[in-house]
């Protein structure tokens, strides 16, 4: 059943650049709805920026919207600005004014993420350009349901119906391709004020809505608001009171409803809904409440509550679209924090399925995603979480990825569908466990991870260490980076992404071998701290020791046992760690060895301190 909801607040994203007359258009909307303080309007009559051709005394509408100092100097928009505007029907419009230039795709995604309606500007004299296609694609992808295509500067074409109609015809093909159904091309002149708030007398051939009419008639169409969801933000505790605080999305909860807590699927009944200092019988979409459950089942921040009759199955594999926001590119196999509402879980992008060519809509093969690029990926989370498809509900189908070192937000994610592998592949517990296997061998299983530059002496130390262990009757195995590249990892190169995958695979193999009860010695350059940390996270405390074989690069170059430094010097090897590519020294190494010292002394150190 389709319902129409009249939301009191409409959110609008505006796309276009200064050249299209965007600032002027927004400025006019604000002034003509009396949404700007009068002294600010007065200032816009007097102040002029250099090069302005607007007569003093007239309002320079564009002055009302530019924000930061750098933006006014350069006459461009750098970041999203938010403005409130009163609609003439008593509703409120919150405008997210997005930068138009290509390098600000990520800011446009930010502005569009909450928008109900988009305003896409087209300069009538220039027609639909690649920028327009980019704006439409992002709006469609981010789930903006209504799009007003503003054909601006029609005054400069003599209010030509022919020009307008040409753009409308071209647009219909684009809209079909992008699956945009609710759109309207509005012919306006922002400068002269035609069809913005007031109907134009210059274009009698146009009988459609004015821009303002089109925006303010928007209603939220919801296929079915029958899957209420509350993400638990925090546990409210007072005397004789314990409840789950959070905001409800996508439906209504009633007192007495049978619910489940996710991901545990524990069942309970809603005994009380607390909000605004009192009790409610029911609470609906976007309401911030506290749910009291009976029985008081275990629940914590990051869990969610849904109806027992209709809940999202928790999963740990998802297919999703990502808009990459970070300055460092996305690497698959690298661990990020995934945050969805109050839920947070480590996650890995296991596969980049394709990259979206944003103007043509073509899918291209991709190894990485760089800033401002959009792609479809597969994501694996460390533990199951309840995410639904973005198309069903924005708030329960979206997430962000956060870099684990800088803690910056690096991606915006939208779930396409759940890959139900988490239900099909579950861990089977065997009764003979790691400890039993190690005890049988009279040893304690452990991974000694030797990291360092090529030629630092890792393999030599690994060899001597294994000889010592063998002599004492211990069961061990050496995983050597070069040797593994002849088999298991022969499909991998030396880019940052491939190195991350190389380290991940070796880490998993070492984990299996340690589980088998072995002492595992790994000799692997593993130049990036983040990749080494991901491996460390696989192990219980004390089962993994990072050993930095610290040898000056000059010494390694002199030794050059494989001739790699010579190749690098000749320009034949661009990605050699410590030369063409960075080597990030360990910060938390359990042991640092001087790679120029006697080998037997170094081996003795490992035996004494780590085994």
């Amino acid at each position: 059943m389709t319902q129409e909801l009249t939301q009191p607040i409409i959110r609008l994203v505006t796309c276009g650049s200064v050249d299209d007359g965007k600032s002027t258009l927004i400025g006019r909307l604000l002034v003509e709805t009396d949404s700007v303080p009068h002294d600010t309007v007065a200032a816009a009559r007097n102040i002029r920026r250099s090069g302005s051709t607007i007569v003093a005394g007239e309002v320079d509408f564009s002055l009302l919207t530019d924000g930061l100092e750098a933006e006014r100097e350069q006459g461009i928009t750098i970041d999203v600005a938010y403005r409130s505007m009163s609609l003439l029907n008593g509703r409120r419009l919150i405008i997210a004014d997005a930068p138009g230039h290509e390098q600000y795709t990520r800011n446009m995604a930010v502005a569009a993420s909450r928008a109900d309606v988009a305003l896409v500007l087209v300069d009538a004299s220039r027609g639909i350009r690649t920028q327009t296609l980019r704006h439409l694609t992002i709006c469609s992808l981010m789930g903006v349901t209504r799009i007003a295509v503003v054909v601006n500067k029609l005054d400069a074409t003599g209010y030509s119906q022919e020009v307008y109609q040409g753009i409308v015809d071209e647009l219909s093909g684009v809209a079909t391709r992008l699956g945009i159904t609710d759109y309207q091309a509005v012919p306006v002149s922002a400068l002269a004020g035609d069809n913005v708030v007031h109907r134009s007398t210059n274009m009698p051939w146009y009988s459609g809505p004015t821009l303002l009419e089109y925006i303010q008639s928007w209603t939220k169409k919801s296929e079915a608001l029958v899957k209420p969801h509350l993400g638990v933000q925090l546990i409210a505790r007072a005397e004789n009171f314990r409840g789950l605080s959070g905001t409800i999305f996508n439906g209504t909860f009633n007192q007495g409803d049978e619910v489940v807590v996710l991901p545990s699927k524990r069942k309970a009944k809603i005994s009380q809904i607390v909000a605004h200092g009192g009790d409610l019988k029911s609470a609906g979409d976007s309401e911030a409440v506290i749910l009291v459950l009976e029985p008081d089942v275990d629940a914590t921040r990051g869990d969610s509550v849904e109806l027992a009759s209709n809940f999202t199955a928790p999963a740990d594999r998802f297919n999703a679209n990502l808009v990459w926001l970070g300055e460092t590119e996305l690497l698959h196999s690298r661990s990020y924090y995934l945050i969805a509402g109050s839920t947070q879980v480590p996650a890995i992008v296991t596969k980049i399925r394709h990259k979206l060519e944003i103007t043509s809509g073509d899918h291209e093969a991709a190894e990485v995603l760089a800033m401002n690029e959009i792609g479809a990926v597969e994501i694996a989370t460390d533990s199951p979480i309840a995410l639904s498809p973005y198309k069903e509900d924005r708030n329960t189908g979206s997430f962000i990825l956060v870099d684990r070192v800088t803690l910056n937000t690096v991606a915006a994610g939208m779930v396409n569908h759940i890959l139900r592998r988490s239900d099909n592949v579950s861990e089977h517990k065997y009764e003979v466990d790691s400890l039993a296997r190690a005890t049988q061998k009279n040893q304690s299983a452990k991974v000694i991870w030797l990291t360092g530059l090529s030629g630092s002496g890792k393999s030599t130390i690994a060899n001597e260490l294994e000889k010592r262990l063998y002599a004492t009757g211990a069961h061990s195995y050496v995983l050597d980076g070069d040797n593994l590249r002849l088999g298991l990892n022969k499909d991998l190169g030396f880019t940052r992404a491939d190195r991350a995958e190389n380290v991940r695979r070796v880490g998993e193999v070492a984990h299996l071998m340690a589980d088998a009860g072995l002492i595992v010695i790994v000799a692997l350059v593993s130049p990036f701290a983040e990749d080494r940390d991901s491996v460390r996270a696989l192990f219980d405390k004390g089962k993994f020791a990072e050993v930095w074989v610290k040898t000056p690069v000059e010494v390694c170059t002199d030794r050059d046992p494989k001739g790699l430094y010579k190749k690098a010097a000749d320009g034949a090897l661009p990605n050699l760690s410590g030369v063409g590519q960075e080597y990030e020294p360990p910060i938390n190494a359990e042991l640092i060895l001087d790679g120029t010292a006697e080998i037997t002394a170094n081996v003795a150190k490992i035996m004494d301190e780590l085994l």
Partner: protein
Amino acid sequence: MKSSSEILKALENESIEILRETAAAFRKPVLLYSIGKDSAVLLHLAMKAFYPAPIPFPVMHIDTTWKFREMISFREEMVEKYNLNLIKHTNAEGVAENINPFNTGASEYTRIMKTVALRQALDANQFDAAIGGSRRDEERSRAKERIFSVREAGHRWDPRNQRPELWRTYNPKITNDQTMRVFPLSDWTELDIWNYIEENDVPVNPLYFAKERPVVFRGEQMIMVDDDRFPLINGEVPVMKKIRFRTLGCYPLTAAVESDATTVSEIVEEVMNVKLSERATRLIDGEKEDSMEKKKTEGYF
């Protein structure tokens, strides 16, 4: 146009979500209480957000020692009424150096007694998140600010390099030398604040209501003479005017407006009709274009 109950309800729900997220995700948050109308609404929302539990973080007032006397007495009333855990901080070095709004330039005075004082208090208490009542409609650099806004080491704001903020998913993670500023009232307008105060009977400072008060004129601005520290020009006698204040700050730097509005609904009427930007009465903002952006990059709220 008056903000409808539905709009206020939607704004309230979102603010509560933000307050709860801050309380849950940060180690040691604090609510900056400036005693004004926005702070009053913020406190009211915090009470609602955590009811039936008490507000789980302290509130802090940066006292420049030049606030209106009625602000301080009202603050004490609120502490009692809401049972607040109040932290007061004054920049003692500034006081020792006799930094004041008359002999020191307004912007330098503000930097030392407000911005530096705030940084001192945040550092001394090791707060990792500071909740403030700023709104995006107040000023154009604020229109660009995120709801969860990261401050780098030294509380610096880098407006050109802000963390992306999408949907209603917030990234509360910060490194050891970063802190967070949180703005639950970002989407509210001045009129929303007053309509909300009216609809919810939120207690606000008496200085907002028109009353006969002693004033002197400085240029076009009317300044209330709140105590005998005010340097009158020789022979000058303050005159009694029926005035009220649109914003509250340090009394020598906050201009009054003539008004007959003695109730909240009369204030709502006035705000709807007058339509002047509210910070026009703040003497410190207009010194130079961008002055708010500049102050904010240094750590001002």
